[in-house]
């Protein structure tokens, strides 16, 4: 089969599976496979967090720039698209003649708006702040995200401090979430495998060397920042229309930390690692809710304590994350038997990127 036919068949199969899963979500007991409301919500959040983690990994994992502002771009996507659907969604739908198609089209436009506005903001924030390095960049991205949140908090047109009720009929099914999670993964993968990706990785490994080799580091850093922000915006759109209520406390730097934890846990610079991290970090606190109550003491109350303790233990025992920089996939399964070191060119055997490891030692020496 030619490559593109293979891809088309793959895409078709994926869409059918996604549609089937989506049909099961929220319908407990359907053919014995359906998911209850609670499980469905967790599944949706998993999908949204996958988008966030995979997109953040492009900046933090592949470009090596440390951003803690992802929640801010998510907020921009959520609020800008909700503004559009709440105030203009109905009219536009009627103008398009109504019906299911117009409905889907308007929601697609909402997603595009979220992506474009968040990406544009990423450009605005990225150009000045990406001149900074390391921890300074981290704190500036955090600062921008907090400013975005506080500005939204003061905008009465989107509800201000009382929150914004996204009272529209755009039921975000799992189909949408899964579709955009897949699009995020494919786009990030293609970017990483392209020339651009090589440039990004060269910046991560050694920014000065990359610059010396003629890589326009600022341009590539801003580019990865914009792509990443746009997808954070998409995640925000889905989150807002799924929750149907937006409040700024959902977008504090704690949320940004959560996404960083996902990618570090899964392995920085690994797309499948980010997916794995997103799944684990979303489900783990929910699983800990099920802890039993022994002798009048409810262990479920300790779930966040256990979560934090587990995080520290993982960092102590497996600092490079579960996957390091490896990817899980069909290739990985095949290669794992033949040449285990085949995909380890960039990192050393512990999976820590060479530049990060050596760079730290050098930095200490230089001081």
């Amino acid at each position, binding site marked *: 089969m030619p490559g593109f036919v293979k891809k088309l068949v793959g895409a078709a199969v994926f869409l059918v599976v996604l549609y089937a899963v989506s049909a099961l979500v929220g319908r407990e007991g359907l053919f014995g496979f359906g998911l209850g409301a609670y499980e469905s919500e967790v599944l949706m959040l998993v999908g949204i967090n996958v988008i966030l983690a995979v997109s953040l990994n492009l900046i*933090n994992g592949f470009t090596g720039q*440390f951003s803690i502002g992802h929640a801010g771009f998510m907020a921009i996507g959520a609020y800008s698209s909700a503004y559009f659907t709440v105030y203009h969604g109905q009219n536009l739908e009627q103008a398009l003649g109504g019906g299911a198609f117009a409905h889907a089209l308007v929601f697609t436009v909402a997603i595009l708006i979220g992506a474009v506005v968040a990406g544009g903001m990423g450009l605005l924030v990225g150009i*000045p*702040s990406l*001149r*900074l390095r390391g*921890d*300074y960049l*981290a*704190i*500036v991205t*955090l*600062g*921008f995200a*907090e*400013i975005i949140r*506080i*500005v939204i*908090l*003061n905008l009465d047109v989107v509800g201000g*401090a009382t929150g914004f009720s996204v009272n529209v009929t755009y039921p975000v099914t799992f189909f949408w979430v899964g579709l955009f999670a897949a699009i995020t993964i494919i786009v990030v993968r293609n970017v990483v495998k392209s020339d651009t990706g090589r440039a990004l990785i060269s910046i991560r490994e050694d920014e*000065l*060397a990359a610059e*010396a080799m003629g890589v326009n580091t600022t341009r590539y850093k801003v580019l990865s920042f914009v792509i990443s922000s746009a997808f954070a915006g998409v995640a925000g759109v889905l989150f807002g229309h799924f929750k149907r209520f937006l409040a700024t406390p959902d977008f504090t*730097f*704690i949320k940004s*930390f959560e996404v*960083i*934890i996902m990618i*570090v*846990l899964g392995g*920085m610079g690994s797309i499948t690692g980010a997916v794995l991290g997103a799944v684990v970090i979303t489900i783990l606190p929910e699983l800990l809710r099920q802890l039993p109550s022994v002798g009048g003491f409810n262990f479920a*109350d*300790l779930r*966040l*304590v256990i*979560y*934090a*303790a587990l*995080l*520290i233990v993982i*960092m*102590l025992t497996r*600092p*490079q994350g579960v996957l390091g920089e490896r990817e899980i996939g069909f290739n990985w399964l095949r290669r794992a038997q033949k040449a285990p070191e085949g995909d380890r060119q960039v990192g050393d055997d512990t999976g*820590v*990127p060479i530049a*990060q*490891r050596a760079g*730290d030692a050098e*930095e*200490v*020496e*230089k*001081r």
Partner: protein
Amino acid sequence: MDTFVQQLINGLTVGSIYALIALGYTMVYGILRLINFAHGDIYMLGAYAGYFIARWLGFAGEPSVAGLAVVLVGSMLAAALLGMAIERFAYRPVRKYARMTTLITAIGMSLLLENLSVVIFEGTPRAFPELLHNSTYRLFGNAAISKTQLLIFGVSIILMLLLQWIVYRTKVGTAMRAVSFNLNSAKLMGINTDAIIVFTFALGSALAAAGGVLTAQYNPTIYPLMGIITGLKAFVAAVLGGIGNIPGAVLGGLLIGAAETFVVGYGQLVGIPSTYRDAVAFAILILVLLFRPAGLLGTTVQEKV
């Protein structure tokens, strides 16, 4: 004029507390290049330590200078021990790994302290006992300064001078500066770097605890999540002044405290609602970093290949 002076006094009060906390961030960063995200929570735990010491030793009912001193020193000691324990059991084992790992460990430690405190102390805020009879001294016009504010200024200045003395006049301080200049060379010169790092954590944590007790005298409600936003602003203050730079942390803290109070006091006049209070620190930080990427007093280190 008197309103301005009043705002300035209030701003510098908040700023002194930011400065005390910022010192811990900046010292740890100076030595380990680690953003100790758990530092804000040590500030919170310092306030709780003070609360329990005051209750158990019976200083809660009868304000006295001796009681205040005991509570302050007691909570500083408790926080110092906690800081040392955190360094020893969480940060030291990951120190050899990539920076991101230590950073996530710090975030995890912060989450652990917060959530553990919510379980142990319960989420409901507690009223911190008054340890010193408060009274207000009128300066001129309507401007006044309260005894608590004088206390905060006094204690902060004493602690900062003490820190200055430790860092620049003692042997251990010289070692601290050597380690922060170059950890490996310091080790080669026979400095016990591990001990110095532990000492730095103890020192920073004690200052944060003092900040916690002093805040609780000024604004007597303590709760387990009080360290998040204050800690963040103190960190911003440290970066603003030039992270790793001790006078910079003090300058940054005072600046942010004053700016915040002025936005609340005068912001309306220029169309900035007081709800922007929490954004001010970040806005100043971003503006300063765009023009001085190493902070106000920081020096740019030229990168060598």
